[in-house]
């Protein structure tokens, strides 16, 4: 290998646009000398940085003078080439490990990240403290103020119903919302709403107990937080795709639970009903009604049915739980009636107009 040579060179000093032309000389030491008519310079190799490779030329910069440019022909003698900083292609460490390995490494990390992101709601949701969820729910939906129907008798009946399906010390907050749809929702923060439409549709208080138990199950099994996290992740993925004010919390509330979650909530409801000696036949009857006959096609029902397991199958599970048992009525006729007339009798209840 030669240890000295000369090669044509061009350089700009970074202060003005004048091009200097001449030779780059190397005598085997740690510096490179540039000799031209208009400029002479000596550069330590350590000061040089690789700039770029362009059409037959290599461009170097100086660390101490960022806009200085040295342009050398690409066919440099190997001795000098070894002294100069290495070429960069992809930048950073991709050059060091090679494109193939870097691609594989990136792909592996990405797949892991996506898997983590997609499964996060399932393992993170149940671990979020209940108090956080309650605060978050309060921040998102508040307490609905006057939009919930309330009469002393109706409230008492609802409390009795809730006692049957939510024996916990700190109960979920349940209310009857002044909305005509046949629906019920579990909202972030442990709030459960029965829509007035569903209350009117119910033929027995046991039906309401079953639905309420199901929604309480969603809260207790932490499905709401899981779904909330899933929705949050989705909104990050779609970043801004659903940015309208119109996508209110009901978008969040009606977000789909998985079928497993629905079964868990059903199971929760059955267990509570059994403990409280309330007939699960009401719930079975309800599912049969919404899924069993042609009325199931009614629009108001589709929303509730769509994300849930087949109603027939669910009804059977409830029916089976009733076999060979006798039950006490969960509400008296007067109490059931008070619940039914709750929205009508509440003098100052407001409309839930902005949802629909």
């Amino acid at each position, binding site marked *: 290998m030669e240890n000295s040579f000369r090669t044509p060179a061009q350089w*700009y*000093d*970074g*202060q*003005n*646009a*004048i*091009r200097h032309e001449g030779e780059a000389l190397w005598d085997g030491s740690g510096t490179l000398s540039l000799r031209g008519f208009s400029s002479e310079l000596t550069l330590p190799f350590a000061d040089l940085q690789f*700039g*770029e490779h*362009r*059409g037959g030329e290599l*461009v170097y910069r100086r660390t101490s003078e960022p*806009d*200085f*440019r040295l342009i050398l022909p690409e066919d440099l003698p190997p001795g000098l080439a070894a002294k100069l900083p290495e070429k960069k292609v*992809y*930048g*950073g460490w*991709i050059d060091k490990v090679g*494109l193939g390995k*870097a*691609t594989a490494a*990136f*792909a592996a990390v*990405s797949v892991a*990240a*996506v898997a983590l992101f997609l499964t996060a709601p399932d393992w993170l949701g149940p671990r979020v403290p209940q108090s956080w969820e309650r605060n978050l729910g309060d*921040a*998102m*939906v*508040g307490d*609905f*103020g006057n939009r919930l129907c309330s009469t002393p008798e109706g409230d008492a009946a609802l409390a009795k119903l809730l006692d049957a399906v939510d024996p916990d010390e700190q109960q979920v907050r349940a209310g009857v919302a002044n909305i005509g749809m046949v629906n019920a929702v579990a909202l972030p923060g442990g709030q459960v709403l029965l829509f007035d439409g569903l209350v009117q549709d119910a033929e027995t208080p046991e039906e309401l107990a079953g639905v309420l138990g199901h929604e309480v199950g969603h809260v207790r099994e932490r499905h709401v937080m899981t779904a909330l996290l899933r929705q949050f992740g989705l909104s990050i993925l779609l*970043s*801004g795709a659903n*940015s309208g*004010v119109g996508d*209110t*919390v009901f978008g969040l509330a009606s977000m789909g639970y998985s079928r497993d979650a629905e079964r868990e909530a059903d199971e929760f409801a059955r267990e509570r009903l059994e403990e409280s000696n309330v007939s699960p036949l009401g719930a079975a009857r309800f599912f049969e009604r919404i899924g069993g006959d042609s009325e199931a096609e009614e629009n108001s029902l589709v929303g509730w049915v769509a994300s849930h397991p087949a109603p027939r199958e669910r009804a059977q599970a409830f029916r089976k739980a009733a076999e060979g048992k006798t039950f006490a009525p969960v509400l008296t006729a007067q109490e059931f009636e008070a619940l039914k007339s709750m929205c009508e009798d509440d003098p100052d209840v*407001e409309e839930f107009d*902005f949802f629909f």
Partner: protein
Amino acid sequence: MHYEDMQADSAFGFDGNWKDFARIAVPNLLLTIVTLGIYRFWATTRERQYLWSHTRFVDERLEWTGTGKELFIGFVLVLLLFAIPVFGIQFVSQALVMRGYEAAGVALGLLPLFAIFYLTGLARFRALRYRLSRTRWRGIRGGSNNQGLGYGISYMWKTFVGYLALGLLIPWSMTSLWNERWSKMSFGPYEFNAHADSGNIFARFLLFYLSPIIFVVGGVIAAATGALAGYGLGGEDGAGIGALASFFILAIFFYFGLGVIAVAFYAKFYREAVGSTHWEDLHFSFEASTMDWIKLLIGDVLIVMFTLGLGFIFLSYRHWKFMIENLEANGDILLDDLTQSTTKTAKHGEGLLDAFDIGAF
């Protein structure tokens, strides 16, 4: 004294080729996919390095000195300073609506829209500034000491006024914003200045502006004629078919015709805007005719279609080549006086522009 004779063939030249570009663009695409998009900042940088280094101005190539890292930082800044606050505002505004403060909630929800309007102008300005400050020619760079905050305001009110008078002031708002933007930029010690005159493009704009009306009036007449002709041929059924066929032809004509006229206006605007931009003793011109633009756009569509979309990676190459090949400059440059720019440079890249997905030029 070092003079550059600008009478040479063309001041700008491009000597890249698509096969070399593919060697950059294809690995870029691969790396961008496996990094879930994060590599795209480095990909953009590599593309620009290629495009810039194959672009000649007079007797020296351009150089792109921007880095992927600074683009990435720009992106992260936008995320932190804009996207997350907007997310928070949405949350609060929904909560307000839920609590019955509909008006306050909606007003708060509109705030980000205003912010986006302002930031669009700001982003355009800062992207141009960023690109000039990362471009080297003979070791010299450009830039601006202006932060573009005032330009963001100008962008808001000029765009608003442009649409106010039934859109008739749009040419004025476009040229005026071009002038304002470029007059705040410099390269080396010299500032750019631009005096694009909306009067010169107004006739073209009127063509664009009035043609829908002409189309509609003409279309109704044509449809009626078609229906009549159909009626003559086949009674009432014939009339329906005739009218339908006329509307169909009209719809095609409407989209393509309007598209072509929009391109015609844009081509004229670009010639006017670039042609009235100066840099010290140098004045620029842009040669692309409406036909050139149409060929470019049809070429884009065909390339993307026939490669099942993969060809989109060549679009930046095509557009840059188109720009450079149509760009001309005349005048003198005194190289001794062409000293290094003293403008401040931002440490981060064009994150805003990236976020809003708009072009810089």
